[in-house]
């Protein structure tokens, strides 16, 4: 158990923050530059995973298991979100024959 502690301590928390920030920003850029609705959903997954990893890192470094429970809940919500989102995308594809977000502007006023 001692060496596990040392292993975890050997990587500073800052490095996790930089890494997760980079991953999150890559997800944001993916949402901004792609027009395929499925790829946009995948970029959202990327952002969720960056935040998950940061929550887990903070939880481990502070010795508080609540953070990892939160990660578990985020995963459950993400699974539900993906199921409903993909169902909606399949229906849009059936009605319009495309997954281009530029034609999904019917909710614009």
């Amino acid at each position, binding site marked *: *158990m001692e060496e*596990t502690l040392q*292993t*975890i301590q050997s*990587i500073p928390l*800052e490095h996790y*923050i930089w*890494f997760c*920030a*980079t*991953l*999150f*920003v*890559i997800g*944001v*850029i*993916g949402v*901004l*530059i*792609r*027009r*395929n609705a*499925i*790829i946009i*959903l*995948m*970029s959202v*997954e*990327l952002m969720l*995973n960056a935040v*998950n*990893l940061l929550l*887990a*890192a903070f939880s*481990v*470094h*502070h*010795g*508080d*298991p*609540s953070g*990892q*429970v939160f*990660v*578990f*809940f985020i*995963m*459950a*919500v993400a699974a*539900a*979100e993906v*199921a*409903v989102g*993909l*169902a909606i995308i*399949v*229906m849009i*594809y059936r009605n319009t024959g495309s*997954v*281009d977000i530029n034609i999904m502007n019917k909710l614009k006023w």
Partner: protein
Amino acid sequence: MLTQSLFYFLSFLAVFSALAVIIAKNPVHSVLYLVLTFFAITGHYILLNAQFLAIVNVIVYAGAIMVLFLFVLMLLNLNAETEPQKPLYIKLAGVISGGLLLLVLIGALKTVDLPAGVTTNEPGIGLVENLGMVLFNEFLLPFELASVLLLTAMVGSVLIGRKEA
């Protein structure tokens, strides 16, 4: 020493494949690169001794969710030819605003005082036993709500996806 080089290798792998996800023209390649990213993140969880999260990440994300994505891509028969593209200047604007967001994040977090090192002497908090105790003692109500949420999502997506809706 080995841990650190493993950390940097996994970080590099995750960032590289995440970039490949948003750059790849073929959506199927994007899904496969995203699976690679998830495996790198699973490696990070193992490095953090969060074994429960590592297993759940492989099963739920790399297993279930990515299969769902791949299934929908195959169902809709999307490939590189049908891929809609944004004009170059919008892509450039997206990359620039994303870079600015990264700058803001780094600038905001650079001055934060992080507590040095681990404040506990209990590295086993990520094991299934401990997490189960926390989950079923403190977080029992959210846990049950999550199960209701999953049921609702399942019923909802079946209703949405029905052919003769």
